[in-house]
């Protein structure tokens, strides 16, 4: 069973040299800590920055320099600042190679719900609807089950949708899945260390697909 950092570490392996990457809030933010030193990756922050660097040292915070999570950040050499229209322009035009974000639910057809719970106060979708509708390559980072112990990988989402047929890969504390958005199904491609196929199956409510021999993930 992976912890949050384990999930982030596994996702980091999906990042290739030369990628522009957008990291959502939560576990996705942690992914930045595990990007290998030997590849060049540029982080996009949808409030208008390419080339996001680490948090500043104490005393070097700049109120004019924040990320999409409103945290103080730094810029790396070669950064570029732009306005919100251009930021989402490049997202819609698929100039960002990989988007990593969290989810409340994902359906076996790749639908995602991560912005609204009926009856609870809704804070808004921020840039999530633009990102999921636009990106060609999205990885969802999330827990396999919710706090009530119910699977978040469902035949269909019960919560209001953020986007449809857009999620093709999911990494949880138990497994890595590829989503078959055409025929519907969570295809188990890797197990977390010590986790059996049966355990994953039991924690997956939607259509579950697994070959005989599912490898354990390498971290």
């Amino acid at each position, binding site marked *: 069973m992976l912890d949050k950092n384990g999930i982030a570490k596994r996702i980091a392996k999906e990042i290739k040299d030369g990628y522009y990457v957008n990291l959502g809030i939560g576990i996705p933010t942690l992914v930045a800590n595990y990007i290998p030193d030997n590849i060049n990756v540029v982080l996009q922050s949808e409030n208008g920055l390419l080339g996001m660097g680490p*948090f500043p040292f104490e005393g070097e915070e700049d109120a*004019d320099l924040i990320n999409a999570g*409103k945290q103080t950040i730094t810029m790396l050499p070669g950064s570029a600042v732009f*306005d919100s*229209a251009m930021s989402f322009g490049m*997202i819609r035009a698929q100039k960002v190679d990989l988007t990593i974000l969290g989810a409340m639910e994902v359906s076996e057809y790749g639908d995602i719900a991560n912005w609204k719970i009926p009856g609870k106060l*809704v804070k808004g979708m921020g840039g999530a*609807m633009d990102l999921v*509708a636009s990106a060609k390559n999205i990885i969802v980072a999330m827990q396999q089950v919710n706090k009530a112990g119910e699977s978040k990988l469902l035949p269909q989402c019960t919560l209001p*949708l953020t986007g449809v047929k857009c999620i093709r890969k999911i990494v949880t504390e138990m497994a890595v899945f590829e989503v078959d958005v055409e025929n519907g199904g969570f295809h188990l491609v890797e197990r977390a260390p010590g986790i059996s196929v049966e355990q994953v199956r039991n924690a997956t409510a939607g259509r579950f697909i697994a070959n005989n021999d599912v490898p354990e993930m390498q971290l």
Partner: protein
Amino acid sequence: MINKVVNHAEEAIEGMTDGMTLMLGGFGLCGIPENCISEIVKKGITGLTCISNNAGVDDFGIGLMLHKRQVKKMIASYVGENAEFERQLLSGELEVELIPQGTLATRCLAAGYGMPAIFTPAGVGTELAEGKEVRDFGGKDYLMEMAFEADFAIVKAWKGDTAGNLIYRKTARNFNPVMAMAGKITIAEVEELVEVGELDPDQIHTPGVFVHRIFQGNSYEKRIEQRTVRSV
């Protein structure tokens, strides 16, 4: 050059009346027009529709206007971090329209560029698509979204000249340039107001033609919402 300078926020918001629609630049508390917000609060203009990515926090930014119940409707992409906002929303005092951040930015751009509508994939297949035209281009569905209209657009820039040319600093740019283009009347407050000729024409982010009134603000607090640092 045409001189756009007004003396202060009070003069800048002249003609702003109850029930108007305002655009306010900024992302979170970063790059928000602090001086104009203070003045609107002071003047007590009410029944406002505010188009802004966020709604401030309880005691800063648009939160100050909410606190005085000046906002009738909020159009934003994300409105967390604001207890008074929640209270008004739940009590029905405040109307809220949540729209995707990119749609928000592009509807401003459309207004500034004289395009009545745009197409975006954001929201297709969700409750956001209800009542909207969905259209297939090349096998992918898009929603048609309309350009915004705003009586006033209020933006914050770093430097500006007397002709209204603006330069923003770092990620305080965000929505400011697109909103600056979209107001029937656009007000720019700047940290430093300079004479024409002092800004490099190649480096202007917002040409003065879009700006109707400009003034040098003061006492910028520039509050940080999430102070995050790394260890040495």
